[in-house]
């Protein structure tokens, strides 16, 4: 494998190739670029094993590349348990692994996996208390093994400040739905705050494919982002996280060391959706990642995610991701679809024309590895013969990358915190959210839409509803300088009538 694993431009939307940064991981020096996350810089250097699992110290590599998993926890000098795929790389950063005995690559504690049969959940609370007093002997040993990173006891807290923002509509997430919603609400005359976690606008338009023609998403992204950035009614906060929703649309938004206390009249959450992993043996090893993670690596960081890939999918987007991998110079050994056929049959022809073998109605039964389990070396593909059952014989393929995407899980965290209920519909294999507070809306893929056209329509509809919630006629452009529009009190609910109170009160 080459020591440096970058794809040529225009891949690498987030990285600045003119600014190389040098950093260290586990005492070894590596090179990355400004804009890299710690994980992407390490992967560009073919450093795949990033952490060890909590209990059995199994090797772990990147899974989501979006800060959504615990596979990339690393130790910084003054901060333990840092998500390496979300933490930006800085010059001379000293990164180490955590939770191992010996070295990250040769963890002596990985032996514990051999005894997993004898260590059920919470077993030490029952096993090490007898005879009386023996806990005092065991406790220091168990305490030493527990926990992940190490705290810096000399840590000096830094200064964090706060600011207040008052807007008509707050839009969380600047993907296609969020951009469209922000534009439409701003066009209707509302003052809009657009909050995006990533450093650039665009969300999934930055890395997902959406069409056989890669220019479709790129063109749409360019058009939407340019319109949003030029709009006088839209304020954009990038690298900012909306941490919660409180009553009457009070949003704590964290950007760097500043906390914005945002008060909005209406709220639209377009937080997107994440691939769901597939369950099979060894699905946690380095080399197994979500399809979206591989696409993020290619498009955002210009990192080639592997040399020979197998895609395991339960949706049509996996077919498009196969094209992405192919164009990034990754050999695609096979595409395994858990369904009997893709929804769009032309995709099969497109892939077969490019020489990718498609295994329909099959799944990955097991990921195989060499001694030491440091990376996958192949997969065992089996036909699905019945619900929850696979054939006894399968096809073995060599690969160093397995991309998986079973379905989509809405990024529901903010909406559930706000009071929404998540439910699953088995017939449609989709999640849906219900019971959101008044004035708070979900839009786009978090609302269950995956087709790009429907996502944009849903964003536009959320903007229309928000505008009418504010009392703006979406057809008429007006500028209202007031921060809040009070719900007009209806004269029908006059207190004295509805409560049947006497008209004169004695005091």
């Amino acid at each position, binding site marked *: 494998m080459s020591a440096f694993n970058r794809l040529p431009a225009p891949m690498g939307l987030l990285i600045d190739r003119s600014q190389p940064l040098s950093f260290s991981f586990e005492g070894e020096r590596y090179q990355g670029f400004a804009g890299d996350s710690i994980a992407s810089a390490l992967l560009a250097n073919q450093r795949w094993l990033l952490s060890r699992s909590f209990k059995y110290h199994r090797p772990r590599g990147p899974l989501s590349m979006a800060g959504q998993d615990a596979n990339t926890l690393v130790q910084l000098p003054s901060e333990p348990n840092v998500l390496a795929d979300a933490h930006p790389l800085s010059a001379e950063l000293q990164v180490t692994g955590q939770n191992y005995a010996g070295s990250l690559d040769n963890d002596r504690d990985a032996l514990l996996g051999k005894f997993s049969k004898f260590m059920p959940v919470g077993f030490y609370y029952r096993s090490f208390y007898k005879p009386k007093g023996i806990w005092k002997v065991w406790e220091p040993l168990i305490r030493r093994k527990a926990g992940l990173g190490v705290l810096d006891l000399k840590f000096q807290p830094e200064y964090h400040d706060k600011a207040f923002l008052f807007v008509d509509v707050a839009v969380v997430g600047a993907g296609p739905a969020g951009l469209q919603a922000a534009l439409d609400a701003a066009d209707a005359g509302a003052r809009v705050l657009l909050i995006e976690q990533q450093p650039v606008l665009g969300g999934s338009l930055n890395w997902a494919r959406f069409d056989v023609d890669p220019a479709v998403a790129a063109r749409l992204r360019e058009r939407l982002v340019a319109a949003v950035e030029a709009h006088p009614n839209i304020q954009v906060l990038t690298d900012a996280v909306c941490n919660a929703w*409180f*009553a*009457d649309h*009070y949003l704590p938004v964290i950007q760097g060391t500043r906390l914005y206390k945002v*008060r909005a009249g209406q709220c639209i959450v377009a937080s997107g959706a994440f691939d769901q992993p597939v369950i099979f043996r060894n699905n946690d090893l380095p080399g197994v990642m979500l399809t979206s993670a591989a696409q993020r690596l290619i498009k955002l960081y210009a990192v080639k995610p592997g040399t020979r890939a197998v895609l395991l999918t339960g949706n049509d987007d996996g077919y498009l991701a196969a094209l992405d991998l192919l164009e990034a110079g990754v050999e695609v050994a096979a595409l395994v679809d858990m369904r009997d056929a893709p929804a769009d049959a032309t995709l099969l022809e497109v892939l077969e024309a490019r020489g990718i073998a498609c295994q329909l109605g099959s799944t990955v039964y097991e990921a195989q590895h060499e001694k030491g389990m440091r990376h996958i070396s192949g997969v065992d593909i089996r036909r699905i013969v019945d619900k929850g059952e696979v054939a006894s014989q399968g096809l073995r393929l060599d690969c160093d990358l397995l991309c998986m995407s079973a379905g989509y899980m809405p990024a529901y965290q903010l909406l559930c915190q706000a009071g929404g209920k998540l439910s699953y519909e088995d017939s449609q294999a989709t999640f849906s959210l219900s019971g959101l507070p008044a004035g708070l809306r979900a839009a786009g893929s978090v609302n269950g839409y995956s087709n790009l056209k429907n996502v944009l329509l849903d964003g536009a509809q959320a903007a229309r509803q928000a505008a009418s919630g504010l009392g703006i006629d979406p057809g008429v452009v007006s500028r209202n300088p007031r921060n*809040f529009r*009070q719900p007009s*009190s*209806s004269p029908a*609910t006059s*207190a*004295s009538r*509805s*409560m049947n*109170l*006497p*008209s*004169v*009160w*004695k*005091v």
Partner: protein
Amino acid sequence: MKIMPCPLNGPRNISEFTYGGELRQMPDPAACTDAEWADYVFNCENRAGVVIEWWMHTPSSYWFLAERHTVTDEIIRTFDPKEIFSQRLDFKATAAASGRVSA
């Protein structure tokens, strides 16, 4: 944070307000029984539904009434007490009260 629309000061954060209890009719202290008076002083209805409550905007010491749903915590409307307390009442010192003062 919740917003309370104050009839005098407009919409403000709920942290600026003080709760003053349910709006209830006070029995005539001179005429009512001890049981009625004790009920007025010590018991409250605590209804699940739409209630009218006293609230005060603390920085301006302005008391007003709010119609609120106690289950959903929705503030339906707020209004100045003069909507209900529309007549001036003059008090004459009763014999019992003046007797206590002089004692």
